[in-house]
């Protein structure tokens, strides 16, 4: 590493004023605004679920009714309202998606930054990350979920634990670029500790990448949750989109009750698409090549 050149500017690459402007620019893009809107609606649905619809319970006389004014999304083979199931499922999907992605982000960012700055850790962490990335995640998740008692928490932990390596790799590559920058050398010369450099100098520079990762990891976690629930490995007491699909498949009504599979699938599609587009657009607005900044 070259000796620090004191005449060079040693400021972090992102200034606060730019940040506010880029948020505005971000929301001015129709696709970004739309996807953020979808996400906001989803969060509202999850928070207000008890107000919007009663928690699906019991059995009703209207079995397998197609969508109508009384049952917007139709009913299932117990006569329960699919709309209520989808709304309550939003809670589970969002909670698991966010919690799992938080686990993945915390683990991934910590490991990524540590290996970007501390050389000895890098050797080990990279190998571990590579091994984790090479593992077939779905079969492993299925195995784990089958062994432990299925609940929201175990599912979140399992999904979160298998999602960190991608984040770690992303953060590490960005962290490597940052830690080679002159202002980091400057900080080191000024006597800053490794901990301070990582948390105060490198972390702020990769924060936008972390936000993008949160969105992308959360959307992957939502898919994982739906997949595991569909396979019958979800929390049997919590409504989730995967469980609605599982109910349809298990009771053999896939061919005659299209509404029971269509609406939860659409919900999954919308949420995942919105999170992905929002993340990608956010990434674009922070991209210096695109902004010319």
């Amino acid at each position, binding site marked *: 590493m070259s000796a620090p050149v004191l005449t060079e500017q040693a400021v972090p690459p992102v200034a606060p004023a730019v940040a506010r402007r880029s948020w505005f620019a971000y929301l001015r893009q129709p696709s970004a605004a739309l996807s953020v809107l979808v996400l906001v609606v989803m969060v509202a649905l999850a928070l207000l679920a008890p107000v919007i619809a009663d928690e699906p319970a019991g059995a009703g006389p209207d079995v397998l009714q197609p969508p109508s004014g009384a049952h917007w999304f139709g009913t299932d083979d117990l006569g329960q309202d699919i709309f209520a199931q989808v709304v309550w499922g939003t809670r589970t999907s969002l909670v698991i998606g966010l919690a799992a992605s938080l686990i993945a982000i915390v683990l991934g960012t910590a490991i990524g930054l540590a290996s970007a700055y501390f050389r000895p850790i890098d050797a080990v962490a990279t190998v571990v990350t590579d091994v984790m990335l090479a593992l077939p995640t779905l079969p492993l998740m299925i195995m784990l979920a089958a062994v432990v008692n299925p609940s929201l928490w175990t599912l979140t932990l399992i999904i979160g634990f298998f999602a960190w390596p991608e984040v770690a790799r992303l953060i590490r590559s960005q962290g490597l670029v940052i830690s080679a920058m002159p202002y980091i050398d400057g900080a080191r010369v000024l006597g800053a500790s490794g901990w301070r450099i990582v948390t105060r100098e490198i972390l702020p520079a990769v924060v936008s990448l972390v936000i993008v990762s949160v969105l992308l990891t959360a959307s992957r976690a939502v898919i994982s949750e739906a997949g595991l629930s569909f396979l019958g490995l979800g929390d*049997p007491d919590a409504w989730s989109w995967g469980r609605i699909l599982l109910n349809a*498949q298990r009771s053999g*009504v896939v061919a*005659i009750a299209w509404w029971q599979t269509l609406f939860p699938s659409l919900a999954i599609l919308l949420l995942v698409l919105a999170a992905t587009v929002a993340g990608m657009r956010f990434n674009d607005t922070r991209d210096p090549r695109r902004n010319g900044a």
Partner: protein
Amino acid sequence: MRKTVKGRWRLAVALGVAATLGISGCSLNEDTGSSTTSTDGSVLRIGTTTDVSNFNPLQSLSKTDSWILNAMYPHLLRIDENAKKAPELAKEYRYEDGGKTAVFVLRDDFTWTDGKPVVADDVKFSAEMIMKYKLGNVAAKLTWVESIEAPDATTVKFKLSQPYAPFAEGVGFWMSIVPKHVFESAGDLSKFPNDSNWVGAGPFVLDSITKGQRYVMKRNPNYPLAPGGKAAVSQVEYRVYPDVNTMMLALRNGDIDLMGTPVPVSAVKTFQADSNIKLVKVGALGFAHLTYNMKNKQLADQQVRQALSMSVDTKSIISSVLQGDGQQMAGPISPIFSEYDNTEIQPYPFDPAGAKAKLSAAGYKDANNDGFFDELAFGVACDQSNANITRVVQLFRESAAKAGIKLENECVERNTFLSRTKNGEYDIDASQWGVFDNPMDQLRSTYLSSNPGGINYNLLESPEMDHLINDAAATTDPEAFKAKIKNIDKVVHDQAYLTPLYVENFQFAYNASKFTGFVPSPSDLLGMVTAYSLAQVTPAK
């Protein structure tokens, strides 16, 4: 050189054509191999959900295993349309020596597919091997056998240590008869895979298998129970469809002719518009139940078990989950055994408030005022692949909450559930008993502390129950025997060791424009695919 290139082209074109034909012909079954045989009217194609996991008919079998093996290996008795025992390989049976000797008289016209006749020695050999290696569930039914004699080719005598009334029925129905001259050379039969060169004496014998896809069975040219001395159908093919939705579509598309597994009650509408597809309804030989683990301190309390029984709305479960297509039960004896079912006892009424009052009276408290009794929280274990039971658990959890009992839904993946059941790792077991062929065997395997059948899910160890059951088992007078069974029915009901949920009806769907003549038997294990039924099937027109 030129020729090879041309040949290769031809092969490629042929493969392409075959693939296209295959895809259009049977798009739902991945194998495209036998699109020609599919159009042959006398090939009966049956859908099943799982592969065969064990080809040894003497061992414990899954559903698909027993369908295929029961068509190959005869049994002494079968269960007919009315749930009664009917002769199969045995013409008749009787007891001698005050009930201590069971005598089976065999037919003399059964032959193995390698030409040898089926003789009494084969029966003797099969039973002795089961006893020697403790194979399958039949081993428990042979407990009392001291010796077996085959005085001539058509007579088998089982000498018993004590009279046991349902001995002949239980062994006759459950035990597969295997060819001695083939199995003898296999050595240790607990390790014998029997997965090739099959020799059978049923109407059909396995010919080839493609794991995950199909099991092809060829007709046995000599099967005396078929109308013409052999089955009218020349070949039976089991095809594997892990998903029931796909299987139903396959039946509608004409890729299969019969669904071996029952049609889920919610999906019956699928076939409403199709005039070719007929549905046949049969009863059950088992029932769905909630069984309480007596090793749990709270569940060992009779009051708690009774309160739980009062928190299950079986009537509404039958009308919603089964769409009304089922029967309520009171005690552990199914109404299908009308002679033994104690009609004096009534199911516990659905009364969550009464259950709550009962528990309060018994001293259970809700100190933290969360609406639930502090000590009463149980997990309900079930197999999540069973659509009906998972629904039941969902409804049970909601109704028990009204009685102040907190239940946790522990419906898990099938293999996890089975291993938990085996190890007693559950509070309440919600499951379905498949086939009980007689009430005495049922009570023995579900309540004896020695647990001979391995399905004492209560983990009950009660000297009183042991005494009642053993006493009934040794009773030879039919009337006294019935009275004793009815008494046990009542005791189990009073104790609320289990809450019986329902006896359901099963519906089977087949393509009536292609095949007719099925003779359905009760239960989803027997259904349309017993050896006898398959031997009676004829192609339509």
